[in-house]
């Protein structure tokens, strides 16, 4: 049973959908009005974004239907619009990036939060947060200059899904670290003391008490990092090779990883959008790539909510 919040529930609601709390004088406060306007702006822009993308995609959705996501051949001069190879590229590069970045990010967050000397926390956090704020084009350039030549040893041109994944891993690492560190810090200090008082070693306290306590935050940080990797455009564009129609023969075949590929974002960031002016089907197919990207992101977030489970669990 949830206890009703006296500050919120005592005042009667009125207006459309009971949006307004009547403070008792028949008026709305500035804060309340402003916050409702701001909230509806956020919701409105999301709804209109989806609406507009759907409107743009409509010719492709109706003419191509499910083949948009079930076929892997994209070649606009012959009106072939199958996004599967790009979906594969997006999911593979982002997942590999996360697999590479997550252990490093979580471990370094644990070190900063639990082991690092007090005086070094602030500079460490500062450095990590500074890295998280570096514009992605800078990472992209570093990738072109440093990663491509190294990757040329393994793959034909140096531009590959793996190159993109490595770059993405570096890019999401700071965000991941700082958010995981925040959630470790959010675990009440009392718990640490109590755990130690009960005779747990520092090691055990971290593994048995602090990490489970921060689980929600860690999962949230990981998902945020993953969605960032899904959406990153310019850095990926520079190193992915933009080779269309590359699908593995089986899901376990990792060969395409070290070959050039295409992601949803590298396609959308490329030169095809201006080429599609005046062609509703082509433009629609490109817009549907945007929709697919949003669906993947929303699905990931949803999956994360499920995985996080209830916050009370584990106590």
């Amino acid at each position, binding site marked *: 049973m949830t206890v009703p919040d006296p500050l919120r529930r005592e005042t009667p609601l009125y207006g459309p959908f009971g949006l307004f709390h009547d403070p008792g004088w028949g008026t*709305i406060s500035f804060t309340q009005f402003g916050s409702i306007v701001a909230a509806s702006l956020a919701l409105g822009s999301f709804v209109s974004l989806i609406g507009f993308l759907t409107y743009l995609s409509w010719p492709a959705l109706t003419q191509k239907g499910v083949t948009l996501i079930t076929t892997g051949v994209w070649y606009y001069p012959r009106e072939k619009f199958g996004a599967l190879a790009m979906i594969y590229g997006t999911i593979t590069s982002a997942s590999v990036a996360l697999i590479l970045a997550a252990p490093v990010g979580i471990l370094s967050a644990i070190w900063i939060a639990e082991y690092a000397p007090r005086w070094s926390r602030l500079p460490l956090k500062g450095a990590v947060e500074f890295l998280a704020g570096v514009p992605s084009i800078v990472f992209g350039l570093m990738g072109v200059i440093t990663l491509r030549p190294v990757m040329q040893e393994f793959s034909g041109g140096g531009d590959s899904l793996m190159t993109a994944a490595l770059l993405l891993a570096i890019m999401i690492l700071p965000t991941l670290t700082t958010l995981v560190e925040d959630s470790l810090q959010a675990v009440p200090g009392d718990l640490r003391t109590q755990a130690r008082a009960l005779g747990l070693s520092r090691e055990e306290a971290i593994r048995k008490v602090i990490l489970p306590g921060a689980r929600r935050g860690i999962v949230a940080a990981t998902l945020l990092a993953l969605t960032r990797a899904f959406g990153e455009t310019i850095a990926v564009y520079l190193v992915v090779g933009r*080779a269309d129609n590359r699908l593995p023969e089986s899901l376990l075949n990792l060969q395409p990883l070290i070959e050039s590929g295409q992601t949803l974002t590298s396609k959308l960031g490329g*030169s095809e959008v*201006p*080429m599609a002016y*005046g*062609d509703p089907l082509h433009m629609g197919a490109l817009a549907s790539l945007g929709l697919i990207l949003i669906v993947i992101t929303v699905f990931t977030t949803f999956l994360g909510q499920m995985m996080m489970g209830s916050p009370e669990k584990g106590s």
Partner: protein
Amino acid sequence: MGMSFEKREITTCSSKFVFVLALMAVLGLSRGGSANAGNRVRIQGSTTVNPVVVDAVEVLKASRGLDFSTDTLGGSSGGINAVAQGLVEIGMASREISERDLRKHPDVDFRVTPIAIDAVALVVSAPVWDGGVHALTRDQIRAIFEGKITNWNEVGGADLSIFVYDKEPGRGTREVFEKFAYGSDEPPIPDFAHYAQVGGNEETRSKVQDHDSAISQLSFAWTEGTDKIHALGIRLESGEIVRPDRKAILSNQYPIVRRLNLITDGPPCTNCSVLIDFMKSSEGQDIVKKHGYLPLDSADDGS
């Protein structure tokens, strides 16, 4: 006390809100009105044509105070579409208007003005050239760009696996190349390992330069002045090898020659004509030569 705060009621804030809305509306209107201020001529298209036009535009800006903007979004196809949609006044294309363009924009009256002659060269990284590959037949070129020939030793070169930098579909260079390689047949859709797509000329040139066994299609003028890439000759069916040099291009012996075009929808606007006429003038043609392309009149001499 809390009461007096709450009582700053809705009239104040709604009037502020209305003011903000009005401000936004005014800003929006004035922006809309000045989207294409004055007589600015907007130009978009091919990265092959762009350097020439950019230089010409600088001259016209300085000498006549005219206002131009140029960009290369979407290459030739992007430029042609932008003209057809009325987004720009002039499109730049390193290819001719195609059947597909006409089908796509049936109501557009494309007017094409050639301003220079160029060729599409097949360029390879230096180690490929040094390994002994100096010319290819049309069949070999097709097989390479389809991923059927994968090692340079299959065409008389060193033992290096071939990496194909293929121009993106829709690029002018790519479409001219397709016409040469496949004629009126439909080219196969690329899908093989060891290929990547490239966009503009700068990107193509630098990626082939950086690689040790790559091939790509590139504007002839962009192959000069560097020894890190080499333009291959083409072995004709007679067995004769034609290299992409000025003489072979002008005499049309080299098989992948093209014109560089400026494109308008209907008769060009006043300032568009100024640019187009300037490009055809001797001063404009000097700019064409400076960038390594062949001037128009030389074509008349050659044919």
